[in-house]
C-alpha cells in the first residue's frame, strides 16, 4: 500500500495523543489487520525515516498483527478462515461479514514518566 502516508498519519496521531510528553514517547504500538494490505517492514521503515525531525524521534514503532475473523451471515458463528474461499466450519455457509483483520490503528503509546510528575 502507501505505507509512508500511513506512517505520517500515525506520527500525527501519536503527537496529538502525547501532547506535552512527546519527547518521552518510547514506543508507538499500532494494530495492523492481516487483510489491511500493509507491509509491516515498509511501514516501520517509513516511520523511522519520518520521525527524525519530530519530537517523537526516540519512539519505536511496534506492530501487532490482527488475524482475520469473520462472522457467518447464515448461522452467526465466528471463525478465523485459513484462506479464500471463506467457508463456515459450522454450517458450510459462504456468506460472511469481516469482524477483524482489516484494521489499521494506533493502539497506545509507551511514555517514560518524568520523576517531577510524582
Amino acid at each position, binding site marked *: 500500500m502507501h505505507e509512508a502516508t500511513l506512517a505520517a498519519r500515525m506520527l500525527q496521531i501519536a503527537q496529538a495523543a502525547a501532547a506535552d510528553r512527546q519527547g518521552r514517547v518510547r514506543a508507538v504500538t499500532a494494530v495492523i489487520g492481516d487483510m489491511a494490505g500493509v507491509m509491516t517492514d515498509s511501514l516501520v521503515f517509513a516511520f523511522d525515516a519520518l520521525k527524525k525531525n519530530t519530537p517523537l524521534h526516540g519512539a519505536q514503532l511496534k506492530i501487532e498483527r490482527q488475524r482475520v475473523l469473520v462472522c457467518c451471515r447464515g448461522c452467526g458463528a465466528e471463525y478465523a478462515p485459513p484462506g479464500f*474461499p471463506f467457508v463456515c466450519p459450522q454450517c458450510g455457509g459462504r456468506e460472511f461479514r469481516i469482524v477483524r483483520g482489516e484494521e489499521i490503528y494506533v493502539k497506545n503509546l509507551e511514555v517514560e*514518566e518524568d*520523576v517531577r510528575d510524582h
Partner: protein
Amino acid sequence: MCGTIEVEQDVRAENLHQSGHLREHFAHHGVRVIGLLGSPGSGKTTLLENILPALSKKMRVAVIEGDVATENDARRIRQLGVQAVQINTDGACHLDTAMVKKALEEIDLDAIDLLIIENVGNLVCPVGFPLGETLRLAVISAAEGEDKPLKYPSAVLHTDAMVVTKTDIAGFTRVDPGKMAEYARQINPDIQVFFSGFDKDGGWNGAAGDGQSLADYLIG
C-alpha cells in the same frame, strides 16, 4: 517509570468520516455515484467511453478522472460531450475525499443524476479509501491473468461488481473469463460480474452479465 497512553485511533478514520459526509451530500442532491477501481491499463476509461453514450441517454452524467499525471482521460471523456474534471495526484496512488471535494467545486450536482469517479490505476490502495460511492466496480482485464481476483482479494471483496474487460483477447492470453468470475465469487459471493469485449468489426458487446447490461445495472 513508564506509563501508557491509550490511543485506539484509526489511521484512516478521517477519510472514512469524510466519505460518510460525501455520501450524505450526494444523496441530498439525488446523485448516484459509481466508483471505478482497476490496474493501470485495465480498460477503465475505454469502458467509460463505450458505456457513456447509453448512460447519457437516460441520465445527466459527469465524470471525475483520477490519474498521477496528464489530462488525457478527461479529454477523452469530453469528446463524448460529457463533463469531465481531471484530478492529478502527482504521485499519490489513490484518490481521497479531499481531492474529490475539490473536483466537486467544478461540478453542479443539481445539474446531474450520475457521477462516475475513475480512481488512479491501482488495485490495492483505493480499496481502503471510499469516496462516498453508491456502487464500486472493480475493472480487471483478461490481459492481466485469470487469477487476478484471487491475488487481489480486498479489491473483489469491497466492490459490488467486477467487469472483466478485453474478453476478445482472452484466447491469446490463455484466460477463461468464466474462471475469473468463479474466482471472484469465491472471495465475494455477492459480487455481480459483467464481461466487456469487442467483436471483429470493433463493435462493443455492451458488457452483459448476470441477466442485465452494465448500463442498466449502473442506472439502478
